[in-house]
């Protein structure tokens, strides 16, 4: 659909990413995903296109401006390579660069941000713990002040990019139980007491590595405290909003691929003496998929507009996120059904997306948490 909010710059940015995805990623996506890797030149190429630079000052290598439409467009286009694992390996970077650019000391920003934003190094946000999931209030990782250092103890899991990560933003408890006692720290893997192990047998997202991190009396210089002590919770929360937005945008891109693959296959495949596309149930599945895609696209545009023009629409972002992953689940399921046995064989994007649906529906806050949060935001 024609986008009412399109502009010259936005179109140009989208086209740049799209052309790169088409020529450089799509031909290799399947191979990389099966090979559990995302080559470094991909990170660098995306860095050069400004993919990591939204909302960050030019002096650190950022774009010097922010735009929700462009953030969304970048994610939507990137997944069209056919593997949301490649998107996860690269795009999820932005959840750690936000806190670094807002809260880290000038010295850290000057040192780390240019490395990250150019795609030379990987940064990660580490919040989730083995025992706690999305429940930040019960976080167990602790940082004790000891002279000029904090001593960090505990562990973090499901850290996307954590194996190759060079810079980590780690949330830890410095105060009392509850939301008020969380602080953020800048952590590097060469610090003593820092170890990491891969979580490598995942259902999907094979192109992206996932780690569990362990901290055993890991000493952090006090300068590595990001922002004020005990004020880390709000910073994490703000950040989640952008993560949810791009998950919705990526889901939209995946749905579009599912629809295209379905249409292509249904035109080609013959059953009971006519092309699959001539069967009414198949046609209606296509109409339903297409309508859901339109709805999510319209809603995404509305939310991007609100982010740019109004206060951060937390309620709508929550509803958009679970609506988008529900719609993705529907489209991936219907696409599998249209492809039949062919969809069950690995190597096609529909099969891969079917395995990637759930991580989109769970990551960044599950559908259930999104509903709880949305109703609270409605003041009920």
């Amino acid at each position, binding site marked *: 659909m024609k986008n009412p909010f399109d502009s010259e710059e936005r179109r140009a940015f989208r086209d740049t990413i799209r052309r790169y995805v088409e020529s450089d990623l799509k031909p290799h996506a399947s191979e990389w995903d099966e090979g559990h890797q995302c080559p470094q030149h991909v990170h660098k190429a995306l860095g050069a296109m400004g993919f990591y630079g939204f909302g960050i000052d030019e002096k650190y290598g950022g774009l010097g401006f922010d735009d929700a439409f462009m953030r969304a467009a970048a994610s939507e286009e990137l997944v069209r390579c056919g593997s949301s694992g490649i998107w996860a390996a690269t795009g999820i970077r932005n959840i750690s660069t936000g806190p670094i650019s807002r809260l880290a000391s000038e010295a850290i920003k000057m040192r780390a941000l240019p490395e990250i934003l150019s795609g030379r190094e990987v940064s990660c946000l580490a919040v989730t713990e083995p025992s706690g999931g999305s429940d930040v209030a019960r976080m167990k990782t602790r940082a004790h002040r000891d002279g000029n250092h904090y001593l960090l103890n505990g562990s973090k899991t499901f850290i996307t990019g954590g194996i190759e990560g060079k810079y980590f933003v780690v949330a830890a408890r410095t105060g009392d139980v509850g939301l008020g006692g969380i602080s953020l720290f800048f952590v590097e893997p060469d610090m003593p007491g820092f170890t990491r192990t891969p979580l490598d047998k995942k*259902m999907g997202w094979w192109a992206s590595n996932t780690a569990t991190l362990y901290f055993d009396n890991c000493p952090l210089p006090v300068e590595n405290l990001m922002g004020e002590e005990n004020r880390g919770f709000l910073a994490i929360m703000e950040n989640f909003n952008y993560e949810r937005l791009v998950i919705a945008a990526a889901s939209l891109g995946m749905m579009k691929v599912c629809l295209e693959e379905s249409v292509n296959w249904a035109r080609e495949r013959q059953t009971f003496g006519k092309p699959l596309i001539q069967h009414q149930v198949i046609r209606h599945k296509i109409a339903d998929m297409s309508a859901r895609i339109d709805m999510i696209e319209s809603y995404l545009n509305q939310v991007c507009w609100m982010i740019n023009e109004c206060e951060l629409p937390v309620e709508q972002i929550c509803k958009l996120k679970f609506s988008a992953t529900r719609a993705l689940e529907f489209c991936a*399921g219907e696409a599998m059904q249209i492809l039949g046995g062919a969809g*069950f064989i690995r190597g096609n994007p529909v099969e891969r997306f*079917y395995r990637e649906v759930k991580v989109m529906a769970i990551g960044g806050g599950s559908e259930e948490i999104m509903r709880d949060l949305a109703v609270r935001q409605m003041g009920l």
Partner: protein
Amino acid sequence: MQFNQQHTEIRRTVARFVEDEVNPNMEAWEEAGILPLHEMFRKMGDLGLLGINKDEACGGLGLDFGYQAVFAEEIGAAHHGSTPMAVGVQTTMATPALARYGSTELKSEFLAPAISGDRVSSIAVSEPHAGSDVAAIKTTARSDGDDYVINGTKMWITNSTQADFLVVLVNTGGEQIHRNKSLLVIPTNTPGISFSRRLNKLGMRSSDTAQIFFDNVRVPKRYRIGDEGRGFVYQMEQFQEERLWGALSVLKGLEHCIDSTLDYTRQRQAFGAPLIDNQLIRFRLAELQTEIEALRSLSYDCVQQLIDGEDVTLMASMAKLKAGRLCREVTDSCLQYWGGMGFMWDNPVSRMYRDLRVVSIAAGSDETMLSIICKY
């Protein structure tokens, strides 16, 4: 259905076999991408499980399908989908027509060793361009004296790389698409047969699935099951048991998804309370249990009809359809409540989510089931 002492006996034997022989090895088989079918089937043959409803003359137990149904349900307690499927191929998909219409000679050569577990069998119907649309298959068997010469290819064939013989649906001549087909037994060591590499699948990863190519494969005509030209009808008949197997063999697996999710959500704390304290989760799981119980009742009723000699086409199609729908709904809903843990490859629900997705596709897609039900 009423269960007697002997049903209970069979149920216990199968349950112990699954617990001792299948579930402890399942992870290793998943990793290897193949099941040790000869070894597994010999053990099951020794226990008398591979011919429950087959003639005693061929080494079977000579019982009715109700006992086989108990077997199907209980083998479904395996913690992956590949074992129940492989066993189902051996007992209920490849051999019913052979047992019913095969000559005495053919049965002693092929059926008896399949029942004893000495030979692995496989059924080859689908082709690359003819999945649910069985009448559209293109593989031919040309008559040449006392032999048939077979050319063509078969797709998505379970157990095939390990099979000792295949039961293959072929065109033996004539225009009328429902009367020009025959079922042939073809030993896999016959010259001219070749296999693709094992297919790489979303799920059912312990199960070996391949494409088979027939290049001037020659078998004697006595390897034909029953009459020439009746193959389509035999296969449709055989499909009923296959579909019923499909429904029965997923019941326990689905219940295992729910049970393990219940356990997990009882342990897992979130926001100061176990996850299971969320009304929504309890309600959803309760509703799914209701659906599984309805599928069980429907399947049992169908088994009873089959025993009573009635036409079960309608009921078996309904059971298969509902099974396919539920496999998606239950695994999907349960997985959600595991959060990130559900996304791990080895998670029990995640495995079923991948494995059971094929139930809506294989043995006639949901849409094919709907087509059949409409005609009644």
